[in-house]
C-alpha cells in the first residue's frame, strides 16, 4: 500500500519516491480517511458539540420576552427595575400570549424561582385587557400580583435573560447564583449531583479495583498454566464477553434475587435461614459490573503478558533473585502498560454505565448516567441533562488524555 503510482513507470525501482509523488500518496491516504472522519464529525462530534452548547444555551426568555430581556441587560439589578421594564414586560406578554414560546420561557423561569410559571400565565391573562394603565405599568402589574413588587422576582428574570447561562452547569455542581449575583451552595436538601458524581466515580473505582485483583491472576494463568487448562479458561472468559449484556444482567437477577437460584441453594443446604438480599442493592451492582467488565481488564493485560519473554524471569532467577522478588521487580513492571490500558477501559466503561445500575441497582445506587437520561427523557430539561453529561465527559476525557499520554492511544485501543 505504501507504494506510489510512480513505481509502475519504473518497475522495481528502489530509489525513494520523489516529493511530488509523496504528496500524491499523502493525498490518497487523506481521501481514504476522509469519509469516516466526515461521517463521525456529523453523527458524533456535532451532536456532542450541540450537547455542550445546550449546557449553556439560554434563548427561551430572550425569544419569548425580547423587550424585557433587553431592559434587564441595562438594569443594575439593585432594588426594582425602572417603569420602562414593567412596560416592556406587559408588551411582551401581550405579544407572546398563547404561544408555545411563552410556555418555554415560563418553564425556564420556574427553574430560577418556583411559582414563576403560574405568575407569568396569570399576568399574561390579566394584562390583555389593559391598554393604558392610569398609574403606570409598575403599579398595574404589582396590583395584578404583589410578587412584581419584590426584587427577587426581577432578579430571577434578570438571571434568566442573557443568551448564555451558567445556571445548568452550576446546578449540576450543586451550586446556584443567589439574588446578589454571587455563587453559593444549593440548599442541603437539593444537593444531589455532586454526591451522585462522587458515587459514580467511587463505584467505577471499586469495580476497577476488583477487576484488577481478580483479572491480573487470571491473565497470568492464561499465559503460564498448561495449554489445555488455559484454553478452557479462555473460553470461560470470552463466552460472557460475547454474550448480550441483557442476557447477563437478567441471569444475575435470576441467580441473586430473593427467590432466586443462589438463595434457594443456600437455604436448602442450611447455610442461611432466611434468603439474603443479594440484588437490587450495591452488592448486586458490584457483582454484575465486575462480571461484565472483567474481560476488559483481562484482555489488555493478557496481550502485554504474551509479549514478555520467559527468559527475563529465568535471568532474574539465575542472578539469584527469589521468584517473588523477580516477579515484583522484573515481571510486574513490564505488565504495567497493559494494566494501565485495562484499568482505563474498565473505569471509563464502568462510570458510564446506565443499563446495569438501572436494572440490578437499588434506588440509592443510581449513577450520573441515570440523571442524564432522566432529564433528557422524563422531565424535558435538556440543559441540565447536557450539563451533567458535560461534567461526566470532562472527567472521562481528562483521564483518557492523561493515560493516553502515558501509554499511547494505540495501546488503549489494543492495536499496539
Amino acid at each position, binding site marked *: 500500500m505504501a507504494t506510489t503510482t510512480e513505481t509502475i513507470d519504473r518497475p522495481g525501482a528502489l530509489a525513494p519516491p520523489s516529493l511530488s509523488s509523496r504528496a500524491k500518496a499523502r493525498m490518497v491516504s487523506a481521501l481514504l*480517511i476522509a469519509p469516516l*472522519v466526515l461521517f463521525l464529525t456529523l453523527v458524533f462530534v456535532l451532536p456532542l458539540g450541540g450537547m455542550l452548547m445546550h449546557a449553556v444555551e439560554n434563548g427561551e426568555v430572550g425569544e419569548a420576552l425580547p423587550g424585557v430581556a433587553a431592559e434587564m441587560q441595562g438594569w443594575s439589578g439593585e432594588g426594582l427595575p425602572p417603569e420602562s421594564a414593567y412596560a416592556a414586560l406587559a408588551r411582551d406578554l401581550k405579544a407572546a400570549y398563547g404561544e408555545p414560546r411563552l410556555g418555554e420561557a415560563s418553564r425556564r423561569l420556574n427553574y430560577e424561582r418556583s411559582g414563576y410559571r403560574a405568575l407569568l400565565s396569570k399576568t399574561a391573562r390579566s394584562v390583555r385587557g389593559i391598554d393604558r394603565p392610569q398609574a403606570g405599568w409598575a403599579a398595574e402589574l404589582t396590583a395584578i400580583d404583589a410578587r412584581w413588587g419584590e426584587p427577587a422576582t426581577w432578579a430571577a428574570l434578570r438571571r434568566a435573560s442573557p443568551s448564555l447561562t451558567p445556571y445548568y452547569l452550576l446546578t449540576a455542581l450543586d451550586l446556584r447564583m443567589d439574588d446578589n449575583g454571587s455563587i453559593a451552595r444549593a440548599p442541603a436538601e437539593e444537593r444531589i449531583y455532586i454526591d451522585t458524581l462522587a458515587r459514580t466515580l467511587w463505584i467505577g473505582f471499586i469495580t476497577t479495583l476488583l477487576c484488577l485483583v481478580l483479572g491480573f491472576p487470571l491473565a497470568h494463568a492464561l499465559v503460564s498454566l498448561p495449554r489445555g487448562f488455559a484454553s478452557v479458561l479462555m473460553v470461560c472468559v470470552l463466552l460472557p464477553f460475547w454474550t448480550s449484556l*441483557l442476557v447477563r444482567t437478567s441471569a444475575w437477577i*435470576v441467580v441473586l434475587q430473593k427467590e432466586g437460584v443462589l438463595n434457594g441453594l443456600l437455604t436448602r443446604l442450611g447455610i442461611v435461614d432466611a434468603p439474603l438480599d443479594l440484588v437490587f442493592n450495591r452488592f448486586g451492582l458490584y457483582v454484575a459490573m465486575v462480571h461484565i467488565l472483567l474481560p476488559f481488564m483481562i484482555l489488555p493485560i493478557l496481550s502485554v503478558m504474551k509479549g514478555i519473554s520467559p527468559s527475563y524471569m529465568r535471568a532474574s532467577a539465575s542472578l539469584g533473585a527469589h521468584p517473588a522478588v523477580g516477579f515484583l521487580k522484573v515481571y510486574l513492571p513490564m505488565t504495567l502498560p497493559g494494566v494501565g490500558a485495562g484499568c482505563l477501559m474498565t473505569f*471509563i466503561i464502568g462510570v458510564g454505565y446506565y443499563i446495569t445500575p438501572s436494572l440490578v441497582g437499588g434506588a440509592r445506587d443510581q449513577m450520573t448516567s441515570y440523571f442524564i437520561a432522566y432529564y433528557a427523557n422524563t422531565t424535558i430539561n435538556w440543559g441540565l441533562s447536557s450539563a451533567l453529561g458535560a461534567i461526566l465527559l470532562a472527567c472521562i476525557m481528562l483521564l483518557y488524555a492523561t493515560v493516553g499520554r502515558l501509554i499511547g492511544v494505540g495501546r488503549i485501543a489494543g492495536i499496539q
Partner: protein
Amino acid sequence: MSSPTRVLHYAFCCVMMVFLVGPILAVVPISFSSSGFLSYPIPGLSLQWYEKVLAASGPWLPALRNSLIVGTGAMALATLLGTLAALGLARNDLPGRSFLLGLLIAPMVVPVVISGVAMYFLFARIGLTASYLGLILAHAALGAPFVVITVTATLRNFDTTLVRAAYSLGASPVHAFFTVTLPLILPGVLSGGLFAFIFSFDEVVVALFIGGPEQRTLPRQMFDGIRDTIDPSILAMSTLLVGVTVAFMVLLARLGRGTGSKPGSNA
C-alpha cells in the same frame, strides 16, 4: 512457581470459571421449565416459553427483525467507512496520525448514554428520531471504531512487498487492491464487520433514545421485559442468544482472531 502457589492458582481459576459462566448456564435449564418459577428444582420440562417467544403474534419476532435490519445497515456502513480509514491510517504518511486515531476511536470511550442523549437532541431537531435511518447512522458511528481497530491490527501483519510485486507486474493500484490486498485482509474486515454487527445487535441505550415504537429492537424488548417482571420467556430468549453467541465465537475463531476489543460494552 512452587507447588502450593500453583494449586492455589488452579483453585482460584476454577472459582472464577464458575463465576464467569455459572450464571449464564444456570438460567438455561429454567427456560425449559413447565412452571413460571425462576428457581430450582424444576417441576417438569416444557417448551412453552419457547413457543411464547417464537409466536408469530408476539413482540419478539418483530423485535428480532428490527435488530437484523438495523444491525445489517450499521454493519455495512461501519465496515465500508472503517476499512477505508484503516487503509489510510496504515499508509503512515499523514500528519497528526495519533490525533486522527484518537478521533476515530473516541466513540468507544465516550459513555453511550452521553453519545445517545447528544444524538437524540440533534436527531430530534432534524426529524431522524423514531426512524430506522437514525438508528442505523447512530449505530454505525459507534460501531466504526471496532472495524478501524480490527482492520488496523490485520494490516500490521500485511506484507507490502506483495503489492509492490503486483505493481511491478503492471497491475493498477485499484486492480492490485482487489486482487492482492483485499483477499489477504478479508478475515480482518469480516471480523471487524461482525464486531460492528454484534455491537448494534446488543445495543440498548441508543435504541431507547432514538428508536421509536416501530424500531423496537431485541435488546430494548428484553430491557422492558426485565424491568417489569422477569418470566421464563426472557430466559428462553437468553438461551437462544447464548446459542447465537457460541456460533459467533466459532465463526470468529475460524476467522483467526479469538480475542480483541469488544463492542456492546458501554451500557
